[in-house]
């Protein structure tokens, strides 16, 4: 077994359009509360523990110390376990792709591994710790670097028993038609020829609405805007007075410089 210190960089990102949930009446943000079902009240984050549901409504609670006891390989080291041929790995096992780069101290073994994989045309199977979870992964050479793909463990692959289709009768003629069709469309794989048209169309609608909204706001009669504003102010005052008495203390909100925090006050 060989271990190599490395750095990982996510190779893919989803370009899905994401939405926020709003209250349709006033377009204000819908806030998610951590609600205690027993006491029927909101509870702070500090009071949350992790429970494993071993039977319906029966939990065993795990403390942070319990997680610390778990054996976990060093985050930045990859333990090589086996070398295999890539076509032995069913694509269903592939989870997420990363670019792999050597850590400073790992230059030499990294280069050696890359060259060896290239020469042998093999993929190596390894264990790596990503976000405190031990992951199975496959690494293969690609254009002078190493790609790492995390793999599902076999028990994470769902089994589904389907009616076998090879018992259905297909005539030779039908097969010929299918072959002709395939030959017509046979070509090198060129992913750049495809794009997410649903996503593009959605962004077009959003852009149009944004444009439109600015124009509408500008042309809106001043009085309408004021009435609108006063109504919104009134609503926000009423809403805050109801749930008052817990949110005046400074520091109950994340500080403004806190990067990466997504919680945001309702922009009513």
């Amino acid at each position, binding site marked *: 077994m060989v271990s190599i210190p490395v750095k990982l960089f996510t190779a893919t990102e989803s370009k899905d359009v994401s939405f926020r949930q709003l209250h349709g009446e006033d*377009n*204000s943000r819908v806030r998610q509360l951590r609600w205690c079902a027993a006491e029927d009240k909101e509870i702070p984050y500090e009071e949350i523990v992790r429970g494993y549901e071993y039977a319906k409504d029966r939990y065993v609670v795990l403390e942070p110390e319990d997680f610390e006891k778990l054996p976990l390989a060093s985050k930045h080291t990859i333990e090589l376990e086996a070398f295999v041929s890539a076509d032995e790995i069913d694509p269903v096992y592939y989870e997420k792709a990363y670019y792999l780069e050597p850590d400073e101290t790992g230059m030499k073994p990294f280069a050696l591994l890359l060259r060896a994989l290239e020469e042998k045309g093999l993929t190596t199977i390894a264990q790596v710790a990503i976000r405190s979870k031990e992951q199975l992964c496959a690494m293969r050479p690609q254009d002078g670097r190493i790609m790492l793909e995390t793999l599902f463990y076999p028990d994470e692959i769902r089994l589904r028993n389907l009616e076998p289709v090879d018992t259905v009768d297909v005539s030779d003629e039908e097969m010929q038609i299918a072959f002709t069709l395939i030959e017509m469309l046979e070509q090198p794989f060129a992913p750049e020829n495809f794009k997410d048209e649903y996503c593009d169309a959605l962004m077009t609608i959003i852009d149009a609405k*944004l444009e439109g*909204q*600015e124009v509408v*706001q500008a042309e809106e009669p*001043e009085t309408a*805007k*004021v*009435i609108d*504003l*006063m*109504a*919104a*102010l*009134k*609503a*926000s*005052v009423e*809403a*805050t*007075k109801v749930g*008052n*008495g817990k*949110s*005046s*203390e*400074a*520091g*109950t*909100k*994340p500080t*403004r*410089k*806190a*990067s*990466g*925090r*997504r*919680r*945001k*006050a*309702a*922009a*009513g």
Partner: protein
Amino acid sequence: MLDQLDGGAKTLRLLVGDNEIALTNLDKVMWPKIRGQRALTKRDLLVYFAGVAPVLLPQLRDRPLTLTRYPNGIEGDYFYQKHNEQAPPFVETIGVYANNRDQQFMLCNNLGTLLWLGQVADLALHTSLARVDPEPDGHLHSTQFTGSKEQIEASLLNYPDFVLFDLDPYIYSGKEGAGEEPELNRKAYHTTVQVAQWLKELLDAASLSSFVKTSRAMGLHIYVPVLRNFDYAVIRSIAETLGGFLVRAYPREVTMEWSVEKRAGKVFFDANQNARIKNLASAYSPRAKPGAPVSMPLRWDELDDVYPTDFTILTAPDRIESAGDLWAGILDAKHDIRALIDSA
């Protein structure tokens, strides 16, 4: 007194009224030299405080302070301080329940205290938006500030004099390293001015008076004085509502995003400074930033003609002399938000 300060002695015992203040290390550099301006010392800070005291003291009066002390200047370590056992007897204090206990907060209600703040290198004068004095509009709320969270929440210190809008541009010059704050740049300032003017339109439409000043770097603070009818939670919600209006109308310029990355290229509309004992640098306060900028009150019609770096502890006195005290009447310009929304 200014002559005494300017005299060149390294230490000084200054008589202010009946009080004697020991001033030490007067030549210690607080703000190192930058291009176009010499290094500024504790003496410069004290000369500034003494010179602008007539306009500065009214802004600080009766507002609990949070000291931001930089004993070795802006490039050294700094710490916050709310109570100080070594404070001289003329520094007024008030017991306030904060961080789960009663603490003696300081008030800057006289010239002696202001100079002592300079002596202990409190380079930015942070005060509460709420005052301990019920005059003239706070008689409905208790002046019992100690004992418990309930007491403080029912008290005057939970009812601010202002709705505060903190506009902070995250518009980068392109020269910053990863994760650094934006550097000074004209585009950032002018976009902030534009957003401030849009906000003013909204406030004008709602018949609310608004006062504007420069903030820390390229940002602007807008203060809207209001009768003390509403506590911080309601005031913050009002600020958020106005922010929401601006974000919807000008989504390309204004943001209320929590994630710093998502604020890039826009002006961050921060409503969350409307919170108890969240402290903001007062009008005319110096800032612990290179060049010793001052949080300077501005006229709404001059925003485009000035630039935040125009005002430093060296230039601010002349500016104040020629422009007058633009924030003198801020507490007399209060409006009643409750009446406004009830009549809507």
